């Protein structure tokens, strides 16, 4: 590619959603029309999702310029000013010392947004498959496992089990079927998490290389990549990668002529959160209902089709080639005593700069949220960060200095989890968040264990009642009792951790529960049954915008006259509040909203879930 300028456009799902396809086409057309010596390529996600669509201009002399928030017009200006006239468009550039990048340490994401994920050559140009070559030509399986053990790598799917130990078990297991399987768990089901999707879309070969190394280490010749169906682009890129590997003998019989053979199947999930649990996932591959089963026997002993199986998460496998190349000891220098290496997080929610980040273990949550993420949107007050999805919990602002490592996070009641990090501000109601997760768990419970199936239902009913202003004093105690019972009486991790979002919010935000129950007040002004939208007569200009956006015609009035909101037909969607340019609509709650008892009782009930 020397002598030629490369223009890279981030084309992962989120980039495309933000409009990168139009940008890509515009650039291509304008460059062709101008007869410029530049090539437009599609890359994966560089991680700065808040600034999508992203365009990077890489000069032939190695200099790179990253542009953010690009649309059609801006793309044309890049072509005219930068590519044609040779002057970078300074006002569109993301500065080189951008704080979003400065505190990150990118190992797993080192190729994401840099290479074209659909090009095997570009992966190989950045040491791709060198680790595999090293392993196959100069290391025994035991030596590979030893390196992984030395690195201290722990499962990145959430539970944090030491990877080297898992591999040892699978290597040592006797197979009665003559087969051993390896599986990659890419059934990223946690709502609010998209790490695996980004890695698979941005650098699929790294994950596949990690799987091959694992297969060699444990002595397996067949494997499965289980990807959720909601990620069509990741599946497509994996299929392309697999085909490329087969063409050059990186997959199939006697890989690189070494006598080591491996075959991989890509399996699409069918939409069941519980299939992220390893035994359920294996059941699903076998074509059954994805229901967890009792362990032991652990998969390493008896897994897929009764054969010893090793199952790891996408990010875990993606770390493996890097560990082999840099050496386990070098990798272990990153991070804390018990949590080595880096962790990829999906930063989302009420954060200024959301996206995919990779940080060294041992960084504090505050650094992630404020230094990398730039703080809270609209400079509102930071309230909590939800980690680990439905199995995790909410870490409050007061504990934001906690370090990111498996044990410190577990001590807060949350978990490291797979990497979802949803930031919440003062406008997020913690009771509603708890209800949200319980509603998710309730839908996704496979139904095998009574407490998970019915206990979560009872908890959801209580939480719904509280958010609808019908909470009772005894509710909190009942929630705690149910939570304790669900934890001890469920078979799998999903059930055992199901009450966590409720327990952590109770632990840190008890006053919000009490406020809902006793004062019918939702301080975050989120719970529909406890709020009212009202027009402030002194601020309303009678511009009619609220009346126009109101889906139920509850907001009404004549031009240039103060408008009104009919409380009987208002569905509390908030569209008028968003639309009003004069801040003339206020949201009230508690005694302020419902001065008379009757008004509170005639409220529409929101419990659609």
């Amino acid at each position, binding site marked *: 590619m020397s002598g030629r300028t490369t223009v890279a456009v981030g084309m992962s*799902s*989120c980039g*495309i*959603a*933000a409009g990168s396809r139009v940008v890509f086409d515009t650039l291509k057309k304008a460059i062709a029309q101008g007869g410029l010596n530049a090539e437009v390529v599609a890359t994966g996600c560089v991680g700065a*999702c*808040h600034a*999508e669509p992203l365009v990077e201009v890489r000069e032939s002399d190695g200099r790179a310029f990253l542009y953010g928030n690009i649309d059609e017009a801006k793309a044309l200006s890049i072509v005219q000013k930068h590519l044609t006239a040779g002057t970078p468009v300074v006002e569109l550039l993301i500065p080189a010392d951008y704080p979003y990048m400065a505190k990150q340490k990118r190992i797993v994401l080192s190729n994401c947004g840099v290479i074209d994920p659909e090009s095997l050559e570009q992966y190989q140009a950045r040491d791709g498959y060198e680790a595999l070559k090293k392993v196959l030509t100069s290391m025994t399986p035991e030596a590979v496992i030893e390196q992984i053990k030395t690195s201290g790598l722990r499962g990145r799917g959430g539970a944090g089990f030491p990877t080297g130990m898992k591999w040892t078990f699978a290597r040592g297991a006797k197979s009665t079927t003559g087969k051993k399987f390896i599986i990659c768990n890419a059934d*990223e*089901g*946690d*709502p*609010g*998490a*998209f790490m695996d*999707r980004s890695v698979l879309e941005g650098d699929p070969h790294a994950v596949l290389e990690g799987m091959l190394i694992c297969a060699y280490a444990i002595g397996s010749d067949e494997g499965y990549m289980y990807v959720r*169906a*909601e990620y*069509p682009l990741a599946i497509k890129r994996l299929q392309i990668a697999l085909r490329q590997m087969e063409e050059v003998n990186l997959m199939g019989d006697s890989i690189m002529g070494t006598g080591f053979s491996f075959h991989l199947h890509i*399996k*699409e*999930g*069918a*939409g*069941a*959160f519980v299939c992220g649990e390893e035994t359920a996932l294996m059941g*699903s*591959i*076998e*074509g*059954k*209902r*994805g229901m967890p089963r009792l362990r032991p026997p652990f998969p390493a002993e008896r897994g897929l089709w009764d054969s010893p199986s090793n199952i790891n998460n996408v990010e875990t496998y993606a770390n493996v080639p890097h560990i082999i190349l840099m050496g386990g000891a070098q990798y272990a220098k990153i991070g804390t005593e018990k949590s080595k290496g880096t962790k990829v997080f*999906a930063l*989302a*929610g*009420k954060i200024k700069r*959301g*996206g995919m980040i990779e940080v060294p273990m041992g960084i504090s949550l505050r650094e992630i949220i404020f230094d990398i993420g730039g703080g809270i949107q609209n400079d509102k007050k930071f309230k909590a960060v*939800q980690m680990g999805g439905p199995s995790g919990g909410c870490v409050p602002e007061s504990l934001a200095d906690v370090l990111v490592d498996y044990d410190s996070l577990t001590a807060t009641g949350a978990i490291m989890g797979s990497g*979802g990090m*949803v930031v*919440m501000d003062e406008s*997020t109601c913690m009771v509603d*968040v708890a209800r*949200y*997760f319980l509603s*998710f768990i309730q*839908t*996704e419970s*496979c139904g095998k264990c009574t407490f998970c199936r019915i206990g979560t239902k009872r908890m959801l009913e209580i939480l719904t009642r509280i958010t609808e202003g019908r909470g009772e004093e005894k509710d909190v105690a009942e929630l705690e009792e149910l939570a304790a019972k669900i934890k001890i009486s469920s078979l799998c991790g999903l059930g055992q951790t199901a009450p966590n979002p409720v327990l952590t919010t109770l632990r840190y935000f008890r006053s919000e529960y009490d406020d809902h129950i006793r004062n019918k007040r939702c301080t975050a002004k989120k719970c529909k049954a406890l709020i009212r939208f009202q027009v402030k007569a002194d601020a309303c200009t009678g511009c009619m915008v609220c009346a126009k*956006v109101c*889906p139920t015609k509850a907001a009404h009035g004549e031009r240039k006259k103060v408008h009104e909101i009919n409380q009987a037909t208002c*569905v509390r*969607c*908030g*569209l008028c509040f*968003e*639309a009003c340019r004069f801040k003339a609509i206020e949201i009230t709650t508690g005694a302020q909203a419902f001065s008379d008892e009757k008004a509170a009782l005639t409220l529409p009930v929101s419990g*659609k879930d």
Partner: protein
Amino acid sequence: MEQAFQALLAEWKGVKGNVIPLLQKTQDIFGYLPQDAMREIAHVTGKTSSEIYGVATFYAQFRFTPMGKHVMKVCHGTACHVQGADSLDTVVEQRLGVLPGNTTSDGEFTVEKVACLGCCSLAPVVMIDGEVYGRLTGDKLGKIVAAVGGAK
């Protein structure tokens, strides 16, 4: 369609773990899982119809009634929830007159509620016919629905 289905059955007959891929590809052909098709899958895979039905109903992906011309998936992931996904539901309900899980009476739209589309930093998002629309407001979504529905 029937021909494609028969070819599919022949292709996957005897393959290990073929039940779910068969159901998925059958749904690709018909847009949903017709009862007769499930019976034939049972026959080919050597399972009972009830086993096949049990598997199909376990997974959120499978449908037992025909889909609308356009499929809208409203994301209810954590980030989308926090950023106001339920307001989008209200807009959809008002605009199309259906609750998630249903198809409009004119067969134009099927509306579904999904757990997470993984585009969290663009929350709230919806996916219409495989295309993700992000950073939505109720107003924006209303316009998108009108545009998609209008493009007949």
